[in-house]
């Protein structure tokens, strides 16, 4: 093999990679946060809602989970634009990623909510907790604690999948890589660098989820045991 690695372009182009990674972080942190809210509401509807609402949420979840993310992004970016609703690439990306994250979160949170036993609800009732208190402290938090590893994985997966948004001209990390690659022709080096950056971002996201978990789950923090 006569290939010579040449990372010289980094001296000049590293701010581009930083900017790309920063946009990736912005897009995906927003999408994960919004997606979590959407997913949790949808999960509650799917478990406790009326038959019509349950069907609607079910259709949403199955449609999103059984179509490619790229198509969903194209529909939001090009489809809505054809109808007259012109969203920028970044807004379209956050919207499409949120819709996607929401569907997966619905299923994950539903599993958690369904794992809360009836006796727990009865105990909450006996103790005189209000419905809101019961929902928050007896159902949602323990449910979330049980499925937290899945939620964190889904968040990291979404961050990696956000590379697809380069297709609609969002200048995130992968788009940056393609740009630098087409300017410098050092394709191998560029993609190696980007792979390392994604690896670092994954580690960062897992660390973030771990820290949030410590704050959210007081019992685990005190006792150190899983639920």
């Amino acid at each position, binding site marked *: 093999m*006569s290939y010579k690695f040449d990372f010289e372009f980094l001296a000049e182009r590293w701010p581009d990679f930083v900017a790309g990674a920063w946009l990736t972080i912005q897009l995906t942190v927003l999408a994960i946060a919004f997606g979590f809210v959407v997913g949790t509401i949808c999960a509650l509807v799917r478990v406790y809602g009326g038959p019509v609402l349950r069907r609607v949420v079910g259709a949403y979840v199955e449609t999103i989970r059984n179509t490619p993310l790229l198509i969903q992004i194209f529909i939001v970016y090009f489809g809505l634009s054809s109808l007259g609703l012109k969203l920028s690439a970044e807004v379209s990306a956050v919207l499409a990623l949120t819709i996607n994250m929401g569907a997966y979160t619905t299923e994950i949170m539903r599993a958690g909510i369904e794992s809360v036993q009836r006796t727990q609800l009865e105990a909450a009732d006996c103790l005189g907790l209000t419905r809101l208190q019961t929902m928050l402290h007896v159902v949602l938090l323990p449910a979330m604690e049980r499925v937290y590893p899945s939620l964190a994985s889904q968040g990291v997966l979404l961050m990696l999948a956000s590379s697809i948004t*380069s297709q*609609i001209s969002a200048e995130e990390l992968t788009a940056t890589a393609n*740009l630098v690659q*087409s*300017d410098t*022709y050092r*394709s191998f080096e560029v993609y190696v660098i980007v792979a390392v950056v994604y690896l670092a971002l994954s580690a960062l996201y897992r660390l973030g989820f771990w820290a949030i978990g410590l704050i959210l789950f007081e019992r685990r923090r005190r006792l150190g045991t899983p639920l």
Partner: protein
Amino acid sequence: MNKRMLLRLMGGAAVALSFGLPAHADTLDEIKKAGKIRVAIDTAIPPFGMTDDKMQPTGSDVDLAKLLAKDLGVQLEIVTTTGPSRIPMLQTNKVDVVVSTLSITPDRAKVIDFSVPYADHPSVVAGLKTVQIKSLADLDGKKVAVVRGTTQDSDLTKQAKGAQIVRYEDDATMAVAVASGQADILATARSLLPAISKKNPARTVEPKITMQTNWLAIGVRKDEPKLLAWINDWVKANLKNGKLAAIYKQYHGVDIPTDELLKKGS
């Protein structure tokens, strides 16, 4: 395969690896030995490369590659590529040559070799009829769609600093962006405008500014003097006998400036 043979093979592989691959394998000889030439063509750039209603590749670059393979006396293997990946594919020996609306640029000439030019290729800034632009300065603050990694991308990035450049991955995506209303202005090859306008006649685009005329050539890996010489002679011969002009006329409806091309190639 018995154990001893396997060991011998592994030993052979180790020796091959330790010496490295020969740096000067001659591609022209390899093409003839294999009986086929691998040509990178982007089939998403009508009318250079596209697919017909039977999903078969067609277009002026495709016909040029067919003619090239026929004259070499080998089979043609079309390897579909995209703007950003066509040069890496050549560098990493995924293909033998690139015939993919490849414009000659000094930057590219550092990493690959070009044949003599076979066609001209003006790039323009185009826009909807309602858009008022006369010079690159008028692009300030406006969104301009380009395909990432093309000459229009790098030219516009340098020359129209005030413009907001929106980069898409290929011509098809950029065309959809124009047709769906995400972009009103684009910088692209003049040859592409009719196809883009056809997607949504209500959003017909017309050329506003000619940025520059590029010259299209066949891309060859560095250090391939035999292959390059053969291709150069072939291009000149087929410019003179009018075959390349006929292909271009068939797909683009305009003539190539044969005399100017021959002058550039001499």
